[in-house]
């Protein structure tokens, strides 16, 4: 297969675009496209301060790399969860994140959950029994809270995450299977800043997972190849596989599924109900983040429960 730009040998075939590209052209194309979507969706400008949530995986490290290449002011945030499960998952992903930051002279914040709150994530999940056998719901709560906290404490305008199209399509699929209206209304590559929380953006939402893997590989980015031990058999992985089967038969299917959802939304298909009862927001007395509860936010309630265990 030939590269569509230079006619050389293609390194990757993107069937949904009907386009093959060689290494050099692909490495130029992907950041250019990212820039296009950053502008189109008004994600951020060069004078804004960006905090990138980095996990040590291919997507978030690639995102950090791309923002750096495009000349944005992007610092990293690594949240050390203390997940080990026999192969030092957290320790290894932290090592790779720090290595990347050092190599490119980038500024990285590291938050250590066990050091700051006295308990690592798996133990926290056990103590507070949020997830029955998987700590994922606790993990999501902890990550959200800590990202918001760091963004506020250090004055970042924007929080960026490395979600790719496969992530977004799988989430959309899950929310659609359950007709989860609240989530469908909120799912978008840009969430405006609200109630003192930083804007949240997903600059890679248009790229397939396989393009991000190719980018990381071609750029020589060393990332954690094994997935989180708790991700195994998760419904989101199952949905990704299902969507890939569909994609295999109909190139572009998963892209259309998500992109047409965004278009439908723009046209008002998922408008907020006009008579919506907007929950009154309060300020958590412990951490100062907005919450719908009239007391501590769910993060602080969980931490309190854990300390009483």
């Amino acid at each position: 297969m030939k590269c569509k730009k230079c006619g050389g040998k293609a390194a990757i075939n993107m069937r949904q675009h009907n386009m093959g590209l060689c290494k050099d052209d692909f490495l130029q194309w992907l950041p250019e496209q990212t820039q296009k979507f950053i502008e189109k969706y008004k994600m951020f400008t060069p004078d804004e301060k960006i905090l990138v949530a980095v996990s040590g995986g291919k997507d978030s490290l690639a995102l950090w790399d791309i923002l750096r290449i495009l000349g944005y002011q992007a610092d990293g945030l690594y949240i050390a969860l203390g997940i080990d499960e026999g192969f030092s998952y957290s320790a290894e992903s932290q090592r790779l994140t720090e290595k990347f930051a050092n190599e490119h002279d980038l500024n990285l914040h590291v938050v250590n959950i066990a050091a700051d709150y006295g308990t690592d994530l798996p133990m926290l999940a056990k103590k507070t029994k949020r997830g029955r056998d998987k700590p994922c719901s606790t993990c999501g709560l902890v990550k959200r809270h800590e990202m918001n906290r760091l963004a506020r404490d250090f004055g970042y305008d924007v929080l960026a995450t490395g979600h790719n199209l496969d992530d977004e399509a799988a989430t959309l699929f899950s929310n659609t299977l359950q007709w989860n209206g609240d989530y469908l209304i909120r799912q978008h590559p840009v969430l405006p800043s609200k109630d003192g929380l930083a804007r949240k953006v997903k600059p890679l939402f248009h790229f397939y997972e396989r393009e991000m893997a190719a980018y990381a590989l071609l750029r020589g980015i060393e990332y954690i190849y094994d997935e989180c031990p708790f991700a195994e058999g998760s419904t989101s992985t199952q949905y990704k596989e299902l969507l890939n089967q569909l994609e295999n038969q109909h190139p572009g299917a998963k892209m259309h599924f998500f992109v047409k959802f965004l278009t439908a939304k723009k046209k008002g298909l998922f408008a907020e109900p006009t008579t919506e009862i907007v929950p009154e927001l309060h300020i958590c007395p412990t951490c100062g983040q907005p919450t719908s509860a009239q007391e501590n936010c769910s993060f602080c309630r969980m931490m309190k429960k854990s300390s009483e265990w």
Partner: protein
Amino acid sequence: MKYTTTIILRDKKYEVKAGSTLLSALNKLEILPESIICVRDGELITEDTILKDGETIKLVSVISGG
């Protein structure tokens, strides 16, 4: 005479017939091309590549969770 290409995915090793395309080998092994990228001698290759005798292709799984 048998001409074979070795395909590696994580800790699994497969022997396939050389001379056909990578895509047909993937189909035979029931591996979705969408879920992997293919590397030969450190270089990324497309699925229409013809497999040669004695070479090794490494498949990198792209799905990640967490």
